[in-house]
């Protein structure tokens, strides 16, 4: 009873499947479906660049057009991963340059990208369209110049949050006059001034430009000119938003903005002079995303701006907004889905603004669609967390950072177990959680019991014993990424849950209590896990096995466990079961 559709038919059916998850499922049905699917997969996402090798990817998927990849673990953002650890893009770029001459898109996050890589990209792919480098480093503006000069059909160049060595602003002038295809340009992370006339001409000849994020060096006086050339913009990031207060500058800016009927997102606003904020009022009713995380704007001016943005869905703001501003936000922005409140003075011992747990409570009460929160504050209570959980059972992402490590409930002095417990119990769709404050093993029991959809968990200065970690690893069915720092979790929990680690993308533990012996044992027990001991004190086998390691990073991989680019402070298990570095 053999029947089959011709390959072309199956291929056509598969072309409707865009999610990797669906395509992966399809490829498991039978060998012929696996074969057909792999030839027509054009887009992949590699969550950990060391989970697989370029050769394996190229062998399986010969026709890729778009590659998205992540490198360093998340805690690298906070300097917890020593410099030189890895995540080099070059081997991938070089291998793909040969295998995929028609590659169009490369999106990298937390990877080390060199000018050499950028030059190779610009010269190898004739139809290259999209380059997104998020939190990457290792390249200079010379690399950008290659991209600008050689990618004739470039649509997107997005350098969000990357660390670029800024040699000069001249790179922008390398875009040839014939380049008119730009849809998105994000240069907000760059320091130097680019030639304004080059920028203006580039914008003017890019009729499809939808996203333009300028860097701080673009002065406010020039913004109006740029905006006038691109009234079709959907997303705009301003440069410095300050200038001597002059009515002609203001009216010119206001006029330019009022022509932007499609504007949905605003960002930038460095060095804000609040008097210039009203220039954007004409577009506020259409704004759905506002990123003011670089802007020191007093609460009263923030409130004036935000209350005009009734359709706001996403707000990123500094804690200058204060509780009062958040209350106003809750009253005006009923469509709010995502809120991030960053600390203006993260290292100050005393609060410099009046932002407390109350602000978050107000927003959770007033904004029925709120599902994603990142909140830095200096005090919290179980009562507030319980109220928040009850108000907003629809949270998908909840990240709370109470600035002082191990801060207790400031009202009762108790741990915040009950509060976070309420969050996981009420928010059944919770996928991401970051916790802080004083927390015992009890909170982990709640998490293991209730957080069944949780995919990513970040823990710091919490817990009392291995039992805490055990609750999480044994209870959280959907867990993919677990990152832990400064917690008393050790060998027992890790070894008892070794099999769990195979179902996750990665586990990071730094300044915990995992011994070198346990790392070796784990690596021996689980051949498909790479157990990286990251320790800057010299070879771990020069110390007793019971000695605790500084950091351990465990991830599943189908590639070799001895990656060739390991620096001298990373050790993994060798074939002969000894830990060595390459």
């Amino acid at each position, binding site marked *: 009873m053999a029947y089959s559709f011709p390959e072309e038919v199956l291929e056509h059916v598969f072309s409707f499947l865009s999610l990797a998850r669906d395509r992966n499922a399809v490829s498991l049905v039978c060998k012929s479906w696996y074969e057909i699917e792999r030839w027509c997969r054009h887009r992949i996402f590699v969550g950990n660049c060391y989970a697989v090798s370029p050769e394996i990817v190229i062998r399986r998927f010969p026709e890729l057009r778009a590659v998205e990849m992540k490198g360093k673990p998340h805690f690298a953002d906070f300097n917890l991963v020593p410099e030189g650890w890895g995540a080099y893009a070059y081997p991938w770029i070089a291998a793909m340059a040969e295998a995929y001459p028609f590659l169009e898109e490369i999106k990298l996050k937390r990877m080390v990208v060199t000018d050499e890589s950028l030059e190779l990209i610009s010269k190898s792919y004739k139809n290259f369209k999209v380059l997104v480098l998020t939190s990457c480093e290792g390249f200079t503006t010379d690399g950008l110049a290659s991209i600008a000069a050689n990618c004739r059909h470039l649509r997107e160049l997005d350098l969000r949050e990357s660390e670029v060595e800024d040699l000069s602003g001249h790179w922008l002038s390398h875009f040839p006059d014939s380049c008119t295809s730009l849809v998105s340009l994000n240069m907000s992370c760059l320091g130097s001034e680019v030639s304004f006339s080059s920028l203006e001409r580039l914008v003017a000849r890019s009729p499809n430009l939808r996203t333009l994020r300028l860097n701080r060096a673009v002065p406010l006086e020039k913004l109006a000119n740029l905006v006038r050339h691109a009234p079709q913009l959907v997303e705009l990031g301003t440069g410095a938003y300050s200038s001597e207060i002059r009515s002609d500058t203001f009216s010119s800016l206001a006029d330019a903005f009022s022509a932007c009927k499609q504007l949905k997102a605003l960002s930038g606003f460095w060095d804000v002079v609040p008097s210039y904020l009203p220039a954007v009022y004409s577009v506020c009713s259409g704004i759905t995303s506002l990123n003011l995380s670089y802007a020191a704007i007093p609460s009263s001016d923030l409130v004036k701006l935000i209350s005009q943005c009734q359709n706001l869905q996403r707000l990123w703001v500094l804690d200058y907004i204060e509780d009062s501003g958040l209350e106003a936000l809750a009253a005006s922005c009923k469509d709010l889905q995502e809120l991030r409140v960053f600390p203006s003075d993260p290292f*100050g011992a005393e609060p410099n603004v009046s932002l407390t747990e109350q602000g978050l409570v107000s927003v959770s009460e007033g904004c029925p669609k709120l599902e994603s929160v990142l909140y830095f504050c200096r005090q919290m209570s179980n009562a507030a967390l319980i109220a928040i959980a009850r108000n907003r059972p629809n949270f998908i992402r909840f990240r709370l*950072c109470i600035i002082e490590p*191990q801060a207790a409930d400031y009202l009762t002095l108790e741990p915040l177990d009950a509060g976070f417990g309420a969050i996981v119990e009420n928010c059944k769709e919770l996928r991401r959680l970051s916790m802080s404050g004083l927390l015992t093993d009890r909170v982990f029991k709640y998490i293991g019991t209730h957080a069944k959809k949780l995919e990513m968990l970040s823990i710091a200065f919490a817990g009392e014993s291995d039992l805490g970690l055990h609750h999480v690893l044994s209870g959280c069915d959907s867990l993919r990424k677990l990152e832990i720092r400064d917690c008393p979790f050790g060998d027992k929990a890790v070894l008892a849950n070794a099999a769990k680690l195979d179902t996750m993308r990665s586990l990071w533990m730094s300044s915990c209590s995992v011994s070198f012996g346990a790392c070796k044992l784990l690596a021996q027990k689980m051949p498909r896990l790479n157990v990286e001991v990251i320790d800057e004190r010299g070879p771990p086998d020069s110390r007793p096995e019971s000695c605790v390691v500084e950091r351990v990073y465990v991830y599943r991989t189908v590639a070799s466990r001895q990656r060739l680019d390991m620096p001298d402070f990373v050790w993994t298990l060798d074939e002969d079961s000894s830990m060595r570095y390459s």
Partner: protein
Amino acid sequence: MDNHLQLHLALSTTSTRNLPRNDEKKRKFDESFSDDEMTSNKRTLPLLIWNDNRNMDCGCVDVEEHAVVGWPPVNSRMRKVAEHHRRESTASNYVTVDNGGGGGGGLNSMYVKVEMEGIGIARKINLGIFGSYQALTAALMAMFGKRREMYKLTYRDKEGDWLLAGDVPWERFVRSVRRLKLLKKVW
């Protein structure tokens, strides 16, 4: 809620909603400055050294000095923004937030006159270098060479009223205080 718990003399911040309002200013002497309240520190001590940096008068807190690496978890971009704002506020007392004060830099020099009952000569003290009532009182006692339990701290606010210190959060106190006076407790 018991009045005792509301007198936050330790290094904690309190939600302004939970504190008694100004009309409850008069307090019994045994409710203020008694030893067990001084020591009922609202905070558990952190595992690691939290750099409780009091060097506000130099206004030049180097981010790199902080004892805990990578905490709070702000990325390098945010750290630069914070550093920039700190420099700004030190240089020009820029932040005109209504009730937020001037951050670390704005509290640079806040000299107020301090008198002690029974002592003819008044002194001056820089409030900007203290982080709490506890620290302030300790310094005052050291300055006048007196014992803490003998005196209560009162202050004159910007409206000209004399109030017992300790009722409002520290930051609010610092913004409104104009003069200090230590009065002998009446037994």
